[in-house]
């Protein structure tokens, strides 16, 4: 998925926008030839050329149908490259696990890769490969997903193969010890990363006993899982009513429709969709985890927020983008480009079904733990007090509009957007009117949103680092916390 980026940011990106923005008329100066490596900028500065009027962007058209067992299929012809991407999303994940079967969804996802009634695991891998394909299966908090892609000419076979994996899994008992060993190792590794440690602590603090707040499964929990539990989770949580099949790319539509219809027709209707809605809490706690002599403090600071079904969500996203969620955002400019405390600060809204949370995340120089927290909070407070200028907001709106185009310009991105609609039960207008809604946000609304959702005194603060060095800094921070910074 991603290559290591030794570079400016650490991730790839891209974007596009929708509205031409008002800019000053540009000076038509000639570019003087200058020696390379000018030591000092020369006045007067030239303005950038403005570009032309934006081109239209329309969401790609899609075709949808529902089978008798309520399974939904969405097909989106897109692009020029002879490949097709598919995703099967089943609303059955960690949130559906009982307390005595933690990680059963993960174990089932692994077992699904171990073959079907008519294909061994090795045959499955080979057949996918012969299509120029990939297949990966994973359990998430709310859904189990199967992602696959292949050369266009094999689309019907791949669709049928994915259905076979879900409908007729072998679930071989012989592989259980190996897969448990793998899960134990993966969880063990995950627990050794400061980023995971911090996020886990934060989620536990705000989601409590809800599955979203559960710690990663322990060896004992994994050892206790049985094949019977896996089989009954499969039987009780999987079914047509909870499943969507998404396809995007280049494919022969009639052949693919037919393949999907016949491959999935015997899938039972299964249970109705149901997710236990979490009620996140925050008490403004400061939590630490000792990582002796760590050269950095890993900070996660945040609080509950809203999800895409809430009318405030788009405002929250625009506010987030301006505050900490983009490279040009205020917090990033402050603690990275001005102070140099950190390389990769970023904030984002994590969404779940009918709930969400906002966090700012940064790995900062240990000695600057206090300073970083203070700067983060002061940026929040500044935004609460003073609306951004129309110009700054317009820049962010253009950025978010550009990102929307990018997100909807790859097969995987298109599928992700449609899955978001389905998971959250959102109307089509969530997508079709998104850019308009982004551009409708006013500077005053950004400040209002910051006041409504960003409460520095209530934020849960997690710091993973060298306790010896961070404790005094946190003490100082706490002592000032209730006062204006």
């Amino acid at each position, binding site marked *: 998925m991603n290559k290591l980026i030794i570079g400016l940011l*650490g991730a790839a*990106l*891209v974007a596009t926008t929708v509205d031409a923005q008002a800019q000053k008329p540009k000076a038509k100066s000639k*570019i003087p030839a200058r020696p390379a490596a000018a030591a000092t*900028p020369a006045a007067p500065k030239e303005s950038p050329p403005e570009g032309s009027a934006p081109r239209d962007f329309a969401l790609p058209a899609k075709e949808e149908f529902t089978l008798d067992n309520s399974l939904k299929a969405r097909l989106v012809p897109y692009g020029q490259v002879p*490949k097709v991407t598919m995703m099967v999303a089943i609303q059955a994940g960690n949130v559906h696990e009982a307390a005595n079967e933690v990680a059963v969804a993960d174990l089932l996802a692994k077992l699904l890769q171990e073959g079907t009634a008519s294909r061994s695991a090795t045959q499955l891998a080979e057949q996918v490969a012969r299509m120029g*394909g990939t297949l990966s299966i994973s359990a998430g908090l709310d859904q189990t997903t199967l992602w696959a892609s292949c050369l266009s000419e094999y689309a019907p076979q791949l669709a049928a193969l994915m259905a076979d994996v879900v409908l007729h899994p072998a679930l071989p008992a012989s592989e259980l*010890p190996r897969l448990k060993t793998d899960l134990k190792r993966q969880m063990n590794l995950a627990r050794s990363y400061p980023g995971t440690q911090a996020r886990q602590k934060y989620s536990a603090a705000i989601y409590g006993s809800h599955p979203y707040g559960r710690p990663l499964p322990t060896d004992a929990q994994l050892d206790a899982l049985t094949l019977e539990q896996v089989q009954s989770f499969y039987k009780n949580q999987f079914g047509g009513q909870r499943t969507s099949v998404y396809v995007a790319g280049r494919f022969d539509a009639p052949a693919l429709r037919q393949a999907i219809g016949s491959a999935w027709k015997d899938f039972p209707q299964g249970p109705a969709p149901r997710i236990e809605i979490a009620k996140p809490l925050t008490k403004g706690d400061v939590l630490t985890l000792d990582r002796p002599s760590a050269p950095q403090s890993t900070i996660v600071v945040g609080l509950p927020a809203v999800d895409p079904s809430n009318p405030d969500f788009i405002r929250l996203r625009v506010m987030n983008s301006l505050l900490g969620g983009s490279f040009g955002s205020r917090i990033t400019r402050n603690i990275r480009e001005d102070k140099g405390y950190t390389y990769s600060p*970023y904030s984002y809204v994590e969404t779940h079904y009918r709930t969400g949370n906002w966090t700012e995340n940064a790995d900062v120089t240990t000695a600057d733990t206090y300073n970083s927290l203070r700067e983060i909070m002061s940026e929040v407070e500044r935004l609460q007090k003073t609306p951004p200028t129309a110009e700054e907001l317009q820049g962010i709106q253009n950025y978010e509009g550009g990102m929307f185009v990018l997100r909807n310009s790859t097969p995987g991105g298109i599928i992700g957007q449609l899955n978001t609609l389905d998971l959250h039960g959102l109307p089509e207008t969530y997508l079709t009117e998104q850019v308009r809604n982004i551009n409708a946000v006013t500077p005053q609304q950004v400040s209002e949103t910051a006041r409504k959702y960003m409460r520095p005194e209530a934020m849960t603060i997690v710091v993973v680092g060298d306790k010896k060095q961070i404790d005094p800094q946190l003490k100082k921070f706490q002592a000032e916390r209730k006062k204006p910074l």
Partner: protein
Amino acid sequence: MRQLPELRHSLLWGPAVALALGACSQQATSVVTAPASPAAPMAATPAPAGPAFEIPVEYYTLPNGLRVVLSPDHTAPTATVAAYYAVGFRTEPRNRTGFAHLFEHLMFQGSQNLGKAEFIQLIQKNGGALNGSTRFDFTNYFEVVPSNKLETILWAEADRMRGLAINQGNLTNQQGVVKSEVRVNVLNQPYGGFPWLDMPQKANKNWNNAHNFYGDLKDLDAANLADTKAFFKTYYAPNNAVLAVVGDFEPAEAKAWVEKYYGNIPSATPPPKPDLTEPRQEQEQRFSKDDKLASKPALAFAYHMPERNTPEYYALIMLDQILLQGNDSRLYQALVQKRGYSDGVSGGINSDLGNQFNYNGPMLWMGSIIYDPSVQADSVVSVLDQEISRLAKTGIDQATLDLAMVKIRSAFYDQLSGSDNFGRADLLAAFALFDNDPARINRIEDEFRKVTPELMQKTIREYLRPGNRTIITVNPLAKS
């Protein structure tokens, strides 16, 4: 997904995660390898090869030596600009490890018409995204914008090719940022730098290929403004660069803008060509690394690659597909599926820092695996030997070559698509920079079709011999 860290990958910068270019689906690794047993026949007869897919390529050079590649693609209303300079971490000064990468950061700190942070703001407020990265043989800068803003970006990229305007404050600030980057990606992580940063230092003998290219912190601290001026002057001239433009634009219009903004940037004396040669390795080397943050042992192996663009090079890319790429690969099947040593084995050619095409010098084919203390490192090595010698003994039939080919083709298409068009721009720029021939992009498939079973055998014998490899094991010192 549970939030598991991606081993060996840098932390994604937040907002990009949301985009992730649809990549949650596709692992960067292409698909992979070879049937150990006869595969069940496909339910349906395979269709003929997919629709022909030709990338438009227009290539020319300005009088000042700037090489320009234009490749229109009207799939989405976006345009991608990529500026590639022929300087990477192999060519940085000896007393300044990490300098090429530090300098990349400085390219965002101010030029004649754009002050600090203004370049980033300009791209973002125009609805675009950007990044830069430093690699073995190039440093790149790229932006993706709504296509109506292409001229704006071409102007901005030219502004910094013309010269930087940075002060000590900017330099000090970015030294801090880069040191934070090294801490987050290497020093404060289990398996930090393993194997992507460690292996070149152990497998190679020539300093250019074998130093810590992220930089020793003291070297990063020692950098001064005079270094940055000298570095820019030596390497950042139009005649040492390629400009690639991909996406939704009209070539005539783009050409006029390129001429207008880049045409009068003066060229410079070409930089010295460093000697990158590596001696033929005769003896296996083994190293062990203590890791106080890791709780499980790990092992990486690396073999020196054949020279780029030789017949053996293409054969080794196919061997990588057969042995290492995907769940059907020989090593995945042997180490994971059959023996349960781990849940995965990862690697490739120029892995973690690029791909099999975008480099220009000695390179390694590398793989790595994290396993439990109950498994011996020697057991992993003996499986590796068994799988390689099985290929050597039983030979490679046409069906196996065909499988490797279909995987290569499929992965290649992935690289050529994507809303940011970065993969396409990257290939075109690399082929222009290193081969003076970006149109190769449309002929690369043919090179793989020329590979014969005999050539595969010859390549295995010379390159996959134990004497040509380096092994690094991680000794975990953290409690489970």
